[in-house]
């Protein structure tokens, strides 16, 4: 699990910033749970929270796939890497 900061726009188009935990399992699936209700398929930006890093980490975009609402009422999402259109190099991930 990794502490991350997640930002993006929720279903009411309000910009949000939340702290959460990124679960990264053996099959390289990434999951995150948010208070905010994010539209399925929208892009959110993840930044690792690293207390001991000399530099601030960079934001990385991910596409969300809604999975379920947890018993705590939080929204769980699977995250998919995003490939920029017309990029000269490969995707970010």
């Amino acid at each position, binding site marked *: 699990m990794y*502490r991350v900061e997640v*930002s*993006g*726009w929720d279903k009411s*188009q*309000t*910009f*949000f*910033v939340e*702290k959460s935990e990124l679960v990264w399992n053996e099959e390289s699936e990434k999951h995150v749970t948010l208070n905010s209700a994010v539209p399925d398929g929208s*892009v959110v*930006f993840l930044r690792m*929270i*690293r*207390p*001991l*890093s*000399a*530099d*601030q980490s*960079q*934001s990385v*975009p991910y596409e969300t796939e809604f999975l379920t609402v947890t018993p705590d009422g939080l929204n769980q999402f699977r995250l998919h890497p*995003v490939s*920029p*259109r*017309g*990029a*000269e*190099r*490969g995707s*970010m991930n």
Partner: protein
Amino acid sequence: MSDGVAATVTKSVEVPFAKGTVTPCILDDDPEQLDALTALIDDLGYKSVRASDPDEALQCLRHGRSRLLLADLSDTGLYGYDFLDRVLRTDPGVHVIVITRDYTLESALEAIRRGASDFLPKPVDRARLKRALDDISMLYDQRRRVRALEEQLLKDLEFHGIVGKSPAMLEVFDFARKVARHYTNVLVVGQTGTGKELVARAVHQISPVGTQRLAVCNCSALVDTLLESQLFGHVRGSFTGATDTRPGLFEYANGGTVFLDEVGETSLAMQAKLLRVIQNREIQRVGSPEVKQITVRLIAATNRDLRAEVLAGRFREDLFYRLSSIQIRIPPLRERPEDIPLLVQFFLKKYNEAYGKKIPGLSRRAQSLLLQHPWPGNVRELENVISSACITAAGDFIDLADLPEHMQHRQGHATGSGDDWQPLSLEEVRKIHIQRVLAMCHGNRLRAAHVLGIGRTSLYRYLTREGNPAHLGRRAGVAAA
């Protein structure tokens, strides 16, 4: 203005420019006319690309082989002004010179109103065509030079990863440089997404202990027990899950700096512990009786009005005074819109590199939209918009369709504030206005009363009548992000 006068004016202001800047794409369904125009343009020193039908011309523009279209268009001709609309929809940055036999003043004005750069009657006058091509070429050359200057400016106006040219931000940079030299605690105040962590890192880097360690702790991200453990360390077995003995961030950064982000979110109990660190310069690991001496510079950050939090009993006054002897306030982005173009350039460069793209900029209408947006999420929101636009943009420039939907819809609103007028009661209008002013003042009721032009007591009385004054002030002080 007569041609003679125009010629004189042109001569006196002529500036050398790179003629090969534009490669016109010529669209004409008459092969003879196409040949003649190609030869003429060649003779004027420009290379050109030929297209015999609109789709070929559009392909040429889409693939970036040309950014100037010379097209035989007319309202009644084979290719009407609807084609002009199509071209400009495909790429609003393209210049279109309409060439036609059916010249009338009305049709010329109509074409220009629809976005054409110029309107030339057939047979094309060589001097007029030369002037039109030279003008557009000069414009592109100028834009290239401006972009080069902007890149240089970006380097000059960057302060440890933060970019700004507004007087407010230059003041922030200047003040940060001054306070960084002194080994004293600093409080950085600003809304979410304004760059508080970047400023804190900059202060550390410039400070006498810049070569020492910087530890960053987000105080809102953890519950008290975990926060305490992270800051002060723990010994094995001191709590469930403490399977080893570890130093905390204060020990790690001993001799350097500890940055406490969102210090306003800490509990009163945690605040007492932080006060002890500042006063006594000592820490104790969780579960350990041993006291360790440490020397750290504390930089704290908050998006709350800590003075209001002290008044409300949610933040310790003694800790507030210890943290806030030096305050750096970062203004929200809506207070410094002149920084937006520079920030856009900065993020474009960053994400062009990250995504392997070469997007040179935004269309004029996209730029205009960004300047109108209130940016509740501040610079972070702007960064996400540019990052997202760089991901989705398929064309040369970022256009409206590449921006978030809610921003595109906002473009249709005539009012600057984005409010839809409704016939509310005076009481409702007063309530909404007071809440907005409180939000603008980050919950500071003294400042809000001053802005509203009423006494502080009147404001308190009103807030008490409407509900819990502390709660209203707090809600108003927390940004949407």
